[in-house]
């Protein structure tokens, strides 16, 4: 047993020597040589032109376009939305249509990947969307043409957070979300149902838009009693800094639905 093994070892060892050397030297230099040559060739030959992605030819036409998922998401400026946007093309009876052309458009700095595609066998098109560089709301438009070549459009709204709001979102995840968000997941069980007085989800614009910045600062810093509300809302003024609390408020304003006055502009196709 040991004998057999040791011979195998000697064997592979002997094979290995030249192999290791050659592998260290030859392919590497070859690779760099290739890279260099390619670099020279490419940098001299190609200019800044983009190949315009050619539009696919539709094989079918629908009558309506609806959102399957991916609307009302919250992303970061310039960043990809956490989930792709999925839309579906239906015919007049509401059945999914495969092979219809869907085109996406939005403010100039929103890039869709892909910007146009044919619906798949379930009538859907999925696209990844990085939002633009400005914080605010973005209106995306998904469109398809019906049989008479009339455009049918679907508008979807998404939110891009700036630096301060992103920080606010982080703080919300850590300190507030468990009580304020009724949605429970296995990883993050919500405490909402356990509270005798129910807090409002921060998206609840109808309620939160009516509370001034000063009052929000007061209730977050000093707890519910500061606004004659329940002590179940704890005071965070000794845990969070002033700028933390500003960040939280800026986040709350950014995600509220309907939008708050300070939510910033809506970026749409112009």
């Amino acid at each position: 047993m040991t004998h057999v093994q040791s011979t195998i070892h000697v064997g592979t060892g002997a094979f290995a020597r030249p192999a290791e050397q050659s592998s260290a030297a030859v392919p590497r230099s070859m690779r760099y040589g290739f890279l260099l040559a390619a670099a020279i060739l490419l940098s001299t030959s190609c200019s800044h032109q983009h190949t315009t992605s050619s539009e696919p030819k539709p094989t079918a036409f629908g009558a309506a376009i609806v959102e399957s998922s991916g609307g009302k998401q919250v992303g970061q400026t310039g960043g990809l939305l956490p989930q792709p946007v999925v839309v579906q093309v239906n015919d007049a009876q509401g059945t999914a249509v495969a092979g219809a052309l869907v085109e996406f458009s939005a403010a100039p700095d929103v890039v869709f990947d892909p910007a146009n595609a044919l619906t798949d066998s379930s009538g859907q098109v999925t696209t990844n969307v990085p939002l633009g560089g400005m914080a605010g709301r973005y209106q995306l438009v998904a469109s398809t043409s019906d049989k008479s070549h009339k455009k049918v459009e679907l508008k979807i709204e998404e939110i891009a957070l700036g630096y301060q709001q992103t920080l606010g979102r982080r703080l919300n995840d850590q300190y507030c979300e468990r009580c304020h968000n009724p949605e429970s997941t296995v990883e993050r069980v919500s405490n909402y149902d356990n509270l005798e007085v129910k807090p409002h989800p921060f998206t609840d614009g109808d309620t939160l838009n009516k509370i001034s910045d000063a009052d929000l600062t007061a209730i977050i810093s000093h707890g519910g009693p500061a606004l004659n509300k329940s002590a179940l809302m704890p005071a965070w003024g000794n845990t969070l800094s002033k700028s933390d609390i500003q960040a939280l408020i800026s986040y709350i304003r950014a995600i509220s639905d309907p939008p708050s006055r300070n939510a910033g502009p809506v970026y749409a196709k112009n």
Partner: protein
Amino acid sequence: MKEQLTSLWQRLFGDSVRAFGVVSLIFLGSLAIAPAKNFFSEWRHYQRGYLKMVRNRSDANTLQRHFHGGIQQIWLPELGVVDRCTSCHVGLKESSLTDVPVQPYRTHPVIPHKLDQFGCTMCHRGQGAATTVSEAHSSTLAWEQPILPAKYIESSCGECHRAPLPGTPQLNQGRSLLSREGCVHCHTVKLSDGSVMKATDDPPSLSHIADKTTREWIFAWLKDPQAYATTSTMPNFKLSDDDARDISAFLIANSTPVPGDTATLSAKASPDPAAGTSLYGESFCASCHAVQNAAGNMVGGDVGPELTRVGSKVKPEWLQAWLRNPRAYDPGTAMPHYRFNDSQVATLSGFLSTKTDSDLLANVHLADATPEQVAHGKRLVADYGCASCHEIAGIKKPENFAPELSRIGSKPVTQLVFLPGMQHTLPDYIATKIKQPRSFGQGLKMPQYTFTPAQIDSLTTSLLSLNERSNTLPPSLEVAATPESDYQPAGKAGKLMTDLACFSCHRINGHGGDMAPDLTWEGSSVQRAWLVDFLKNPGTLRPALIRRMPRFNLTDGEVNELTDYIMTVYQSPAVDRDSMPLSGYSQGQVELGRQLFYGKYACQGCHIVDSKTDKGYIGPTLTQVGSRLTAAWIYQWMKNPQALRPGTTEPNRAMGDEDAQALTAFLISQKGGAKKEVAKK
């Protein structure tokens, strides 16, 4: 022709007066070029536009007063910043202009730095001294670095900030991916303090792989690692069948047995699925290992490998030896030594062996390997740099196997190769290279990963932060990261803690995982009797948690060893254990505490003291807290929880002495009904 020219010459320069006049005119004309250019310059255009826009606003007066015409400049010699961006971006500092939809007039979003002290190009790149849009924003012949697309902006934070920041999730994720996905096994990334970025994945040693698995499995794995485990971090090398055949042949031939691993099965694997499921659950295997359920969802943690198809991979005898003591096969493993008894080993191994996938190896038929194949396999292993990640007997870890990335964020565009249709910018190059590394040419070795688009953006962001500036930053500007400590507990208890892999989940003195509570001051926090009990039979304190402390079948001796060590060594200087007694509080104090608990501080929002009435679910249950925590700890915790455990979500109520004392009295009185078997010496 010639005559005409001569007559023209005569007319212009015929005599000296004429010549003087014409030359003066030309001279005057050329003098006017500069002012004209200036007058029609872009920045003036934008400044005029700004004044026009501002005129109709209600706060026009203030805005006009703040406005300074002419070229504006932020000059910060120590940062090398000469930024004239504010010549066009006039409204950056005007807090009222947030309603302007576009630059150059919109207010700058709130960031932690002041524009005057920081300039623009520190974060946005581009050419700060330029005064035209195209020169400032784009790369020119004289200026390589264009403005940074918004989606990578966090990379600039990373030039100075070496630790994760709460406001830069993308940069943080990218950096952690560089370590976690093993990029830095092959690519060196030198950090400013001279150290190199370390990988945090733990690719297994392949020196004894024949003990663990079969050649067929290795073949299938090499061809497509994600077919075995969708969560696998092993990339796809796109090997041909022949190459995968030869590498698998070499790895098997090269493998040596680990003493003990090839021991014959000591217990027959038990096929009792119910017992297996329950032992798997009780042992909290899912805290670290994921299994894909019937709906296709991954259930479980990602500390250890995914186990969905583990039965198609491991040999039964290896699995049993591993479950008995994983450290025998891999001394550095993150897996605890559970001290399972024979029947538990049989139950668990039987349960895991049923997790198979008949498709995985169905089409793998390998003939016996020839010596040539083995030799070729070894060459391939060296060629592809397998030993960069895996320990392989007889093959040295290659040095500088792949290009160093310490300054990749400053790589000149002229040195890059672009694919047709790509934008000619560094960020696009990096992102595409990560997405489809082999598309840049033939014979490239970088393997194919399965990153999501968001992960690619994160990685690109973190790589862009590794640049000339981040490498040459004066130490005064750098915001250093606290390095991970290499704390190791001493003595017998220390050995025991390593064996139990406590640090895979718990953090102590800056070292270890973050799945379970930090134990640095556990000795100040808990009562000895409770700890003994808990180590023998861990329950959970937080009903909402799905990850829990497993039971390790420890002997009394081991429990005592651990408890003694924790109680003496992990003491906080801020908590004087004798300052507060465990009993003897007046009924009045306890009652006051109860009122504070339910009234002023409304603790029942998150904690349960009386399981009949309280419902709070996210903090630890406190029904028995009087038998668990020390009074001194509770008291200090009331006064400032973050001082004892930085980052805890418990809000700091900055309680006065009286409230803190009353609450301590109330909580210490919560001993939770009849106590079971706490008979300790």
